């Protein structure tokens, strides 16, 4: 197909070949790791800053404002200026905090997006870690973040932080289930957990359309639970501004605060990317039945662009939630999970399994 020409495999292969012919295999591995690490670091920093800017602009548009307009044209370097400010700020450690845990928490929080981002295929051949339990890996690793939040809440020696941390713990542990189960629903349809395989299977049509009703339910649940897992939108109880001032990161300043902030936005990206991969076909272009001309035009758009278009669509949706709804209360959040999402999810798995068994999908 036409979009095959945007495959990144030849480039990565040629780099690998070039290295392995010239240096020892060990050094090759080290160099490749370094390249990948630096690329991801750059991506996370730049994309995180961009998302912060995007959020401020999107929220401003929802609220009939203009958002940042002063630093740079249309305020485009506002977040960079903010980031520099955060870097230069003093790192305050309050007197009676648990020093080790207090300093450890932001790093745990920021490690999670680095781990999860490794399995995400941005474009054909642009994926660093492709192994057969990709989905499982994402669900497993993404729950590590809550430890950081809990530690931050506990170690800060602040009652607001503690309440925030505990809320966040209860919330993420519950919503982990929904995220996992909605992914399992789609794994049943796909029959594999390998991320690249899942994307490849959607060549004929995105799973959202292939799996119709159960896939749609799973998608809705995934977006809701994903919003909750990133501590955003109507589920931002852990940092509920009007109740807990800033929740678990009340006592953090400077770059440590920036880590929490950045992690939140990168987690937003990861949730959206997972939704894109599992439900919307990853980097696969949009095809409509047998409209050959239309499909050919779609194929001309590179996979990377498709991927980010879909991701931004979902990010916008999640931002839309955040800037429309009031916040839930902690018991209502848990009620929503255990009384609504979980039973629906279990039923949905059954439905999907029946459907796959009977072959009632496209």
């Amino acid at each position, binding site marked *: 197909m036409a979009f095959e020409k945007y495959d990144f495999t030849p480039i990565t292969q040629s780099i690998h070949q070039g290295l392995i012919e010239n240096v020892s295999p060990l050094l090759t591995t080290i160099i490749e790791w370094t390249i990948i690490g630096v690329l991801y670091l750059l991506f996370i920093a730049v994309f995180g800053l961009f998302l912060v800017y995007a959020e401020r602009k*999107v929220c401003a548009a929802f*609220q*009939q*404002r*203009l958002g940042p307009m002063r630093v740079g044209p249309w305020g485009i370097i506002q977040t960079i200026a903010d980031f520099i400010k955060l870097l230069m700020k003093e790192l305050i450690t309050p007197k009676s905090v648990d020093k080790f845990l207090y300093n450890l928490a932001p790093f745990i929080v920021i490690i999670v997006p680095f781990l999860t981002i490794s399995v995400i295929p941005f474009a054909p051949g642009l994926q660093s870690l492709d192994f057969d339990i990709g989905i499982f890996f994402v669900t497993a690793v993404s729950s590590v973040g809550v430890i950081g939040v809990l530690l931050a809440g506990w170690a800060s020696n602040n009652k607001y932080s503690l309440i925030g941390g505990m809320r966040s713990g209860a919330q993420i542990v519950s919503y982990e289930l929904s995220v996992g189960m909605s992914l399992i629903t789609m794994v049943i349809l796909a029959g594999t957990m390998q991320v690249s395989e899942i994307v490849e299977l959607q060549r004929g049509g995105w799973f959202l359309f292939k799996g119709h009703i159960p896939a749609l339910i799973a998608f809705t649940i995934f977006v809701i639970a994903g919003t909750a897992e990133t501590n955003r939108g109507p589920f931002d109880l852990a940092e509920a501004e009007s109740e807990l001032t800033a929740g678990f990161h009340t006592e953090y300043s400077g770059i440590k605060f920036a880590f929490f902030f950045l992690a939140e936005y990168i987690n937003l990206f990861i949730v959206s990317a997972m939704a894109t991969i599992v439900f919307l076909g990853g980097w696969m272009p949009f095809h409509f039945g047998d409209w050959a001309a239309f499909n050919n035009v779609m194929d001309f758009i590179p996979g990377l662009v498709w991927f980010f278009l879909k991701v931004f669509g979902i990010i916008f949706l999640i931002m*839309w939630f955040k800037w*429309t709804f009031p916040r839930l209360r902690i018991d209502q959040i848990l009620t929503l999970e255990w009384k*609504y999402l979980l039973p*629906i999810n279990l039923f949905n798995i059954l439905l999907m399994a029946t459907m796959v068994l009977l072959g009632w999908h496209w």
Partner: protein
Amino acid sequence: MKSFFNYIAEIFSGIWTLLTGMKITAKYFFTPWRNVTQQYPENRDTLVMYDRFRGEVIMPHNENNEHKCTGCGLCENACPNGSIEIISKSIMTEEGKKKRIIDQHIYHLGMCTFCNLCVRACPSDAIKMGQKFEHAHWDRSTFTKVLNQPGSKIMEGIKE
């Protein structure tokens, strides 16, 4: 069974209310030309304050550098915050009589609450409220203003 249907109905009605809310915000998101933000320092040229806007107390002078203030001190009495001070001086009129006229009409902008009571109290309409509102300054001493211009005289025909 009924409770089960209620459960389902609850979910759908709940989702519906959420969607109506999202429709409202989306309406404003996709009509950015309705934005209400005014970019303040840039729009200075087009920014017009209302005539009655109470920005500061001013004393209008005509082209001959004449004002209407007789120095009667009613505004000083009317001011709740003591932001007006009248300093008068004695002069000899042409007929050889001693007469007290205004020397300095001192206005402390920093103490003013823009209540308009002084303007109401003035019997000769000598002072009024100005439209200027950009009063911020590095130096506090600039907030103490002398409203009558140097060398200014009282207008002819103003009742003492």
